[in-house]
């Protein structure tokens, strides 16, 4: 009996429901864990904030410091602070940064587009380069060329980002003058940071993607396609690519999560505003509100991306679509795909 639309809907809900619960749980748990962690941070956020303005005139008189601490609301029990912050966060009020006096939501809203621009361009460059190199390796008739091509991407993972960034600036900014060296005033300023990040991102993606491609190449349908006389390019695009999408999409999800938090070094070298930079500054300044705000946003991004990745499994690989047969098989398959991607990354 064919599944009715109502059955299909029920299956989707049964599949989606726990995912959404998981999504909410991860966000809440991340928030709580971070809250606990940063309250173990030694050091005085009030002093850190004062020293930003005060320079060598910063007051260290205990009485004055106590007054200021009360002013900033840093008294009150841990539980009170937690509840208060959590309730405000749900309402969208992420609090005020102790160090800079600006609302945290403003700071994050200002930094996120910068980071997103660099991350998006880096992902694009990295993925395209990885696919191109894999394709060239796939079609190359000479073994030595394939081996050489396969050795290039690992360089990307091994190069420290701060080094490649500095070298890129020296050569392309100051040497050739093609791109601005810093800042986000000039839209071209996004290129060099993106290239710096594209190296490790592309390399990681390449490792998963090429492994998936090689796997797919050994599949029986490729053998059939070759026997049918299809050109290599067609084989690659029509068969191999589609079948390597599953782990590739998974690693893409993980990479986006990594990029959401990991751009600190690049932003430092290129003097750009961004999530990574304000995170580092916030930890140095013990600016708890900013740390919390950043963590929530990053966890949100990460969870949304992973949710989308999970949902896309159904689109890419019909075998993973929720069948009336059982959720168990589905979960195992999806989990298997994910594990495979993680191992190969």
């Amino acid at each position, binding site marked *: 009996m064919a599944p009715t639309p109502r059955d299909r809907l029920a299956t989707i809900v049964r599949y989606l429901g726990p995912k959404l619960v998981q999504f909410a749980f991860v966000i809440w748990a991340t928030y709580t864990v971070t809250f606990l962690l940063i309250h173990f941070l030694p*050091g005085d956020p009030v002093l850190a904030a004062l020293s930003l303005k005060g320079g*060598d005139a910063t007051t260290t008189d205990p009485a004055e*410091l106590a007054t200021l601490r009360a002013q900033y609301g840093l008294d009150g029990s841990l539980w009170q602070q937690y509840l208060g912050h959590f309730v405000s966060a749900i309402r969208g009020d992420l609090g005020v940064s102790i160090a800079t006096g600006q609302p945290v939501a403003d700071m994050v809203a200002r930094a996120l587009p910068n980071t997103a621009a660099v991350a998006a361009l880096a992902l694009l460059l990295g993925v395209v380069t990885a696919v191109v190199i894999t394709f060239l390796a796939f079609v190359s008739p000479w073994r030595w060329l394939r081996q050489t091509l396969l050795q290039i991407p690992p360089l990307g993972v091994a190069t420290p980002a701060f080094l490649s960034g500095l070298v890129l600036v020296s050569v392309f900014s*100051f040497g050739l003058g093609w791109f601005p060296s810093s*800042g986000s005033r000039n839209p071209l300023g996004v290129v060099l940071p993106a290239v710096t990040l594209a190296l490790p991102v592309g390399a990681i993606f390449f490792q998963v993607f090429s492994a998936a491609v090689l796997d797919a190449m050994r599949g029986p349908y490729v053998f059939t396609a070759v026997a049918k006389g299809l050109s290599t390019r067609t084989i690659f695009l029509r068969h191999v690519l589609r079948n390597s999408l599953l782990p590739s999409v998974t690693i893409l999800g993980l990479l986006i999560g990594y990029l959401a938090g990991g751009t600190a070094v690049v932003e430092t070298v290129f003097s750009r*505003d961004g999530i990574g930079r304000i995170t580092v500054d916030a930890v140095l300044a013990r600016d708890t509100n900013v740390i919390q705000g950043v963590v929530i946003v990053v966890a949100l991004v990460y969870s949304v991306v992973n949710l989308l990745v999970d949902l896309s499994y159904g689109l890419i690989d019909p075998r993973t679509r929720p069948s009336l047969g059982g959720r168990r098989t589905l979960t195992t398959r999806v989990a298997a795909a994910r594990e495979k991607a993680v191992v190969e990354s």
Partner: protein
Amino acid sequence: MSRSTSQFSRWVAAPVATLAAVGLLAACSTPLASAEDTVIFAIKEDPTCLDPQQTSMTTALNIGRQVVDSLTDQNAETGEIVPWLAESFDTNDDLTAFTFTLRDDVTFSDDTALTATVVKANFDALAALGSAASLASQYLAGYESTVVTDDSTLTVNFSTPNAQFLQGTSTMTLGLVAEASAAATAEERCQSVIGSGPFVYDSYVPNDSVVIVKRAGYDWASTLREHSGEALVNTIEFPIITENGVRTGGLESGEFDIIQDLPYADEARFDTDDFNLYAKANTGVPNSLIPNTSRPIVSDDAVRHAMLLGTDREEIKTLAGATNSEPPTSALTSSTTGYVSQADAMEYDPEAAMALLDDAGWLEAADGIREKDGVKLSVSVTAFYAQDVLEAVQMQLKKIGIDLQLNMVTAGDFFGAIASGDYDFLGAALTRTDPDALRVLFSQAASSHWAIVDNAELEGVLAEQAQTADADARAALVEQAQALIIDNAYLIPTLETTQLHASVAKVNGVTFDSASRIVLYDVRIAE
């Protein structure tokens, strides 16, 4: 020899040009102009707070100086206080009452006029801010009230004599803001203030840039400047470039017109005809090791004296200082008023240092570090900048058998250490124009003192100089304080810091004010 002459002339160019310009101003009135409308000045850190009354960060003050004016101005060469927004001023004999008469043509950028009431609002608001405006509160120590006599006259009253107040009125820390800004909260003021200066805040994107634009109708410049009337450029952009290599590279490639804080290592690279260098020696207490004499090993006089004699300040200057600076020779830098050289007591003498330690019972052990009664001669220094200076000191002290542990922390942790007293030595400088910096640092009665020492004589001298009106008497007390500090090795000076900035050759008109902050009122770009 001609090279050093041309170097010399470039170093002195800025202040000499100012004096020359002042002299010529009366006779010659060729209008100055700029070939370009925008100047790009790369700064090294995010100013965080744009209110010059609240912040003490040099970067923020360098920007704030262009946006607010002060009651008085101070001649950077002679130290003389001259009128600016206040046409005339007067102090009473015991430095407790200061009377100012204001110009009547000054307006703020929100078109409100400068009146005595506005000045009163400024000082009252500052006093209310208290330690949130830490430097200002030091200038306003003992502030009682401001009495407004009429629209243009006011008197500022203090409960105790305040020797630094008049000089303070020439700084941007006591620069005047409009009544609306004075009434705003501290956080609002940090975002932007309304001043009467030649420029106005246009935008501030944190971690990215600050932009200021020309104030139309500005006509009350200080007489110490090169021209009068409006500023010569329309816009000054301050991109925030934290990476030294990117800042210097940008200057070389022409992306930036001026950059703040040229690293000393790059001095030679920009010491050519294509660039101008601007140097101003910092005043106040030089970069030093500041002791906490309540700590076990630090309390040993012999150890501190040995450290004083065992630091080769010439070598530190070569390794970590500017080429044209002097090694420190007192508890004050050589450019501070009241400086008196203590060179004899501080001369590098590692033999004498080692002899001192031997006599005190600190004997050299197998690993090269001295020991006494099983305790290693190991002390720590807590600092949040100038790591290379401390590394050099570490190397030098190791040669005489002292193990100096470095503890590089964040600024917040540095002040946390001061607040809790948890340090052997602090590694820092205290940059102030007035020699009262010694009291701020050493007097145990001062609210945020850094050194922990126990010397009644020093305490007395420091307290007295803060209340002495007579310049000569005060100078004698300051000399006495320096001698006491060095003779007791309460300070181990390491480096006189010089502020070093650079610009492309076609930029003119960059000068320093008396507080070593940059004045951009006359800045212009030649053809």
